[in-house]
């Protein structure tokens, strides 16, 4: 028990130290990161994907696979709610 508590503390300090070290690598506030990708989307989305709404063209086209996962998450949520309430519903 003692050993496991010491191990917990050690891993906590290790992870906390790694997070603090990672904070040092953040960009200063107000200076955005490298924006080459954003510039590409803004410049090319209308011509490539024939979509005025660049945000939608990213969500449903450039990153469509991610949106498929989102839709699957919603589907799973509905399925679980149905499974939960199934016993009490008539018909």
């Amino acid at each position, binding site marked *: 028990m003692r050993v496991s508590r010491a191990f917990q503390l050690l891993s906590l300090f290790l992870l906390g130290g790694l997070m603090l070290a990672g904070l040092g690598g953040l960009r200063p506030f107000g200076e955005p990161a490298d924006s080459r990708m954003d510039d590409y989307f803004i410049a090319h989305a209308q011509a490539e994907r024939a979509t005025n*709404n660049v945000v939608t063209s990213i969500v449903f086209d450039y990153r469509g*696979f991610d949106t498929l996962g989102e839709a699957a998450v919603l589907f799973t949520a509905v399925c679980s*709610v149905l499974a939960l309430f199934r016993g009490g519903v008539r018909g």
Partner: protein
Amino acid sequence: MKPMSVVVRSVFCVFGWFVLVFGAYVIVHGHLTPGGGFQGGAVFATFFAALMASLGEGAFGESVSSRFLSTVESLGLLLFWLLGLLGMGRTFFHNFLAGSGSILFGGSVPVGPNEGALATGGTVALMNLSVGMEVVAGLTLITVYMALARLVVPDGGERGHDR
């Protein structure tokens, strides 16, 4: 759920339809204006939640079967996946309809600010529609099941949660 007072019912019957129209607008114009299938679907499903809250569950529970809603939901997700799969000539989720001149949202868009035409966007518009189908049916299904739920007690009786 019991129907609410005559004030709520009257106001809903007069103004509730605007929610439906706005939800459909947000879904259909997903590739032109902010919003899309998820957001418009949630707005659209709000109508059914308000319908059951104001007029009682009987206003909706018997007219549309949960089997139908479940079918629409599954169909929406399948359609979305299928549209992604149809782009497999290049990559998964490649927009093969964009700017192709096809009658199905195949128009092209000038670069820069423009007034926007509905028949553009290619698969983006179709995916918005299919996701909208899924979200509308899914959220309505959740609302219906929660409204119709009964508390089943071990001795065989059952009662609704608000009676």
